[in-house]
């Protein structure tokens, strides 16, 4: 064997993992000593990769034509395969050296799903033939394709020929296949929510993760998985979860389960709230609403004299913002707070009020977009957590101007994408959830799914039922009459439940001092206005001192 062939054999062996120690050493030596060997290595490696990516199917026939051919047609009636059959017959006739391989029909590449609603920079579609393309609306998915959703993005896909909708969350990777028994989703990581239409007799949708298999015949559920565990939650209907050790359980509406190696599969509320820090929280409200001020349309600092339209004005704006952040940090330290939540980071230019979509800060409030990284980094560097409001609706800018809030079919995806953006850009971990949900999903379901996908965040939902306390800390305002469930009620069944108490006027704080001490003792978190010095900060500090005294 020539040295060249020997080298190629070693490269093949390296990529197949079959080299022995001596062969590995020879390959090492060649590569270190001979540039020609390195070129040969790359050529051999790239040859393998290019072959795996080569569009054989497309070269043989256009995909769209293939998709239109019924699966039941006999292989010799399929135009694209006639050539192969003829070629085989011809080879027999001429007695070629090569074996004539006459095969039954290859599976036709059929569209099994369609991307309907990508958001953000959605991600990539890795075709079964190794080609890669960006995820876009109306792109067809074929059996064997793998979807990789970018961080901060979300994707909705609809299965072909049925009313099943799958929501894929930030950072999810999933491979879709289909056979006679139904559609199979191989979920490598991330979060998947599914509204599954009733499946035809003998068919089911199956989700496989490294730890579990979930079989569905028609329901609404969600799955989250990583390297260590898989959690499943069911909103409607019934699913069967099978762990790697072959044990299985059936889950019905409202139930969840966690599959992880070494632990038995049991029905539970899958993820309870995990946020142990109960120190107070500061809030920052930077704007006055819909001012229509020419030089300060977002209403920053509630000051008509602010000018964000000129370089000089922007310099002054940033200086003032930095001073406000200095004050905020000092106040957070003074009160002993755990962090601070921005309520109106996108400004308040338009009538709907709080935008609750940090992804849009660049277009809605460019001056704050330029400053946000700096000021939030300063707060975090001072040791405080940071949060911001997120809405359940989509904030949209119609051509006629202004801003509208549109309820969406899947508020979980909507909120999740916003949280993922804020987590990624700023390391934000605290999120008041505001907005209308219509009849789409209960707030408890929204919080449950988001906390499963992002277990390290504190969700503060406005409007909540008692179950919401399992996955979030609802926003409470004891100074206003409300039908909201108080945290005291939730703690009767969930001892670690807590709420977040809205900033209260000093007079109310003093009048209800004892009640608030009891609330803090029981675990509730108080908030205060942090962006300027005020009397309520000292009162909150005193309440905490009393509540935490030995």
């Amino acid at each position: 064997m020539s040295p060249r062939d020997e080298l190629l054999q070693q490269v093949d062996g390296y990529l197949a993992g079959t080299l022995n120690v001596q062969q590995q050493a020879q390959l090492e030596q060649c590569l270190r000593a001979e540039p020609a060997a390195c070129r040969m290595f790359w050529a051999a490696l790239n040859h393998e990769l290019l072959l795996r990516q080569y569009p054989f199917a497309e070269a043989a026939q256009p995909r769209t034509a293939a998709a239109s051919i019924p699966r039941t047609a006999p292989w010799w009636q399929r135009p694209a395969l006639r050539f192969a059959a003829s070629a085989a017959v011809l080879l027999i006739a001429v007695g070629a050296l090569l074996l004539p391989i006459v095969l039954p029909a290859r599976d036709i590449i059929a569209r099994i799903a369609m991307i309907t609603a990508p958001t953000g920079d959605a991600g990539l579609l890795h075709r079964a033939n190794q080609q890669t393309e960006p995820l876009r609306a109306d792109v067809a998915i074929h059996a064997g394709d793998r979807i990789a959703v970018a961080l901060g993005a979300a994707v909705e896909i609809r299965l072909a020929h049925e009313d099943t909708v799958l929501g894929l969350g930030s950072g999810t990777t999933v491979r879709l296949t289909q056979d006679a028994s139904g559609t199979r989703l191989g979920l490598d990581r991330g979060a998947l929510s599914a509204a599954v239409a009733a499946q035809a007799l003998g068919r089911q949708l199956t989700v496989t993760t490294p730890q579990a298999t979930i079989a569905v015949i028609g329901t609404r559920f969600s799955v989250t998985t990583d390297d260590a565990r898989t959690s499943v939650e069911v909103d409607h209907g019934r699913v069967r979860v099978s762990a790697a050790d072959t044990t299985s359980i059936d889950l019905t509406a409202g139930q969840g389960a966690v599959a992880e190696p070494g632990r038995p599969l049991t029905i539970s509320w899958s993820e309870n709230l995990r946020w142990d820090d109960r120190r107070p929280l500061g809030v920052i409200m930077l704007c006055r609403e819909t001012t229509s001020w020419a030089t300060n349309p977002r209403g920053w600092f509630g000051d008509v004299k602010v000018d964000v339209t000129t370089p000089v004005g922007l310099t002054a704006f940033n200086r003032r913002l930095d001073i406000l952040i200095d004050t905020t940090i000092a106040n957070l330290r003074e009160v002993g707070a755990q962090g601070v939540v921005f309520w109106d980071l996108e400004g308040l230019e338009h009538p709907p009020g709080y935008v609750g979509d940090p992804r849009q800060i660049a277009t809605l409030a460019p001056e704050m977009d330029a400053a946000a990284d700096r000021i939030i980094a300063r707060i975090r560097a001072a040791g405080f957590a940071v949060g911001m409001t997120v809405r359940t609706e989509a904030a949209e800018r119609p051509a006629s101007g202004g801003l509208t809030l549109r309820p969406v079919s899947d508020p979980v995806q909507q909120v999740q994408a916003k949280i993922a953006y804020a987590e990624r850009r700023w390391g934000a971990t605290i999120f008041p959830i505001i907005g209308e949900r219509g009849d789409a999903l209960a707030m408890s379901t929204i919080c449950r799914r988001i906390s499963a996908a992002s277990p390290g965040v504190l969700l503060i939902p406005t409007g909540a039922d008692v179950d919401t306390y399992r996955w979030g800390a609802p926003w409470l305002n004891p100074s206003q009459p409300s039908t909201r469930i108080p945290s005291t009620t939730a703690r009767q069944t969930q001892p670690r439940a807590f709420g977040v108490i809205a900033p209260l006027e000093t007079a109310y704080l003093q009048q209800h001092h004892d009640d608030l001490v009891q609330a803090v003792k029981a675990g509730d978190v108080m908030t205060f206005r942090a962006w300027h010095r005020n009397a309520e900060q000292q009162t909150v500090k005193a309440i905490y001192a009393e509540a935490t005294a030995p």
Partner: protein
Amino acid sequence: MPPSHTEQVQQLFVRHSGLLHGSIASQCGDLVLAEDILQEVFLVVSSRADSFALGTNFLAWARAIARFKTLELMRERQRDRATLSDEALAALEALAPDVESWQSQREALHRCLELLPPAQRQLTALAYGDGLTPAEIAERSGKAANVVHVLMSRVRKILRECVFARLGLTP
């Protein structure tokens, strides 16, 4: 609407994904694992897109990310497969292909596949396009698996020599 900065970075990733796949495979010595790592690298590249300045060397930036991600994932998955030393990888990296050479090799492959007799081409498509093993191809064709295996080796060698000849990598 023009593509966002992140979209442009992702498009660069798509354009260079074959080369990145190769870099990862050279490091981990496993084409299948390299595909998984490539997915992870895409997520990292997307999340760090803001730190990449368009117009600078994307491949160098992405290869650096891929190198660290490969090390991390190999450590996480406790791979015990023997891999190349840092010295050998450095020698390889110094001669790593660029987009132009990747495209040249792709073009060479295309021409060589066109030159293959239909049966050889179909066999190649089954093995690489459909990912069938020799045993699966044998089952479908009704032939012995070892016969198919020998045949595939022969076709693979013919094809590789054709491509290498076009690239000037002659014996």
